[in-house]
C-alpha cells in the first residue's frame, strides 16, 4: 500500500521534472514539513494529540472494551494474534492490557 501510494504521490509532486534541483526542492519541502510537524508536536501536547492521536485501551484484565474495538474497527482475532506473537498468551483471560498505540500497533501486557 505504501509503495503504491508513494508512486502515485510522486507523479503529482515532481510530474515531469527530472532535474536535480527539482529533487532537492521536493525532498526539501517534505523534509522541512516533517521537521516542522515534529517540532510542533513536541512543543504542544494538544497538537500532538490531534496529529499523532492517543493510545486506546482495548483489553482490560481479560475483558474486551467493545466500544473501543468497534470505534477502531478491530477484531478479537487481531488482538489475539498480537497477544500470541508478543507474549505467547493462549487466552484473552491471560491478557492484562492490550493497547492500540499511536503507531497503529497493538501492545499487549500479560497477567503476572
Amino acid at each position, binding site marked *: 500500500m505504501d509503495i503504491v501510494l508513494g508512486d502515485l504521490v510522486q*507523479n503529482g509532486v515532481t*510530474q*515531469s*521534472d527530472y532535474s536535480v534541483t527539482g529533487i532537492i526542492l521536493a525532498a526539501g519541502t517534505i523534509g522541512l514539513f516533517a521537521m516542522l510537524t515534529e517540532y510542533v508536536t513536541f512543543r504542544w501536547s494538544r497538537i500532538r494529540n490531534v496529529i499523532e492521536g*492517543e*493510545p*486506546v*485501551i482495548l483489553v*482490560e*484484565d481479560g475483558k474486551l*472494551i467493545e*466500544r*473501543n474495538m468497534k*470505534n477502531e474497527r478491530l477484531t478479537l482475532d487481531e488482538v489475539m494474534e498480537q497477544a500470541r506473537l508478543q507474549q505467547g498468551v493462549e487466552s484473552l483471560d491471560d491478557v492484562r*492490557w492490550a*493497547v492500540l498505540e499511536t503507531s497503529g500497533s497493538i501492545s499487549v*501486557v500479560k497477567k503476572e
Partner: protein
Amino acid sequence: MAGAPEGLTLSRHRDMEGRRWWVQVRRVLLVLLAALLVVALFNLFGQRPQSSTAATQRASLKVYAPVHARSGLAYAARFHITARQDIKDAFLVLDPGWAEGYTVNGLAPQPLTETDRNGRLAYGFGHIPAGQSLIFFMSLQVNPTNVGRRSQNVELDDDETPILTIHRKITIFP
C-alpha cells in the same frame, strides 16, 4: 486491579472522556473524502470532453473537448466544421488559451496555413464546398504549470470574415 499502564489513564484512554468527538471528526473527514471522489466521478476535475456547438446559415461548428482538466493530462480536441454554404477560405481562429501552458503534440489534418490573427492562432483549411465537412484534431497535453481558468473561444472565419463563434473556458486543476 491496578491502574492503567504508566502514561495512560482509564478515563481518557479506556472511557474516551474528552475524546469521543474524535470519532465523529474521523467520520466527517471520511465522508468529505468520499464526496471528493464522487464529484470527481461527475467530471468536476476533468477530463471528460463536452460538446459546444454554434450554427449559422453559412456553417456549423462543433467543438468536442474537455472544459475541466488536470495538469499533465493529454487529450485531443475535435473541431467539426460543416459548410452549409460555400466557404472559400476557412479559418479556425483559436484563443491563445488553446496553446498557452500546453504542449501541442500534433495537428491533423495539417492546416494549409498557420498564422497569428491579432494575438490569436489562425489555422487555414482553404475551400470547404457547401454540404461538405471538415474535422480537425488538435492533440494537447496540459503542462504542469498551467493551472487556472483560461478562455478557449473558437471562431470560424471565411478568410477574415467571422461566420460564428463558440465561447468556451477551460479550468485546469493542479
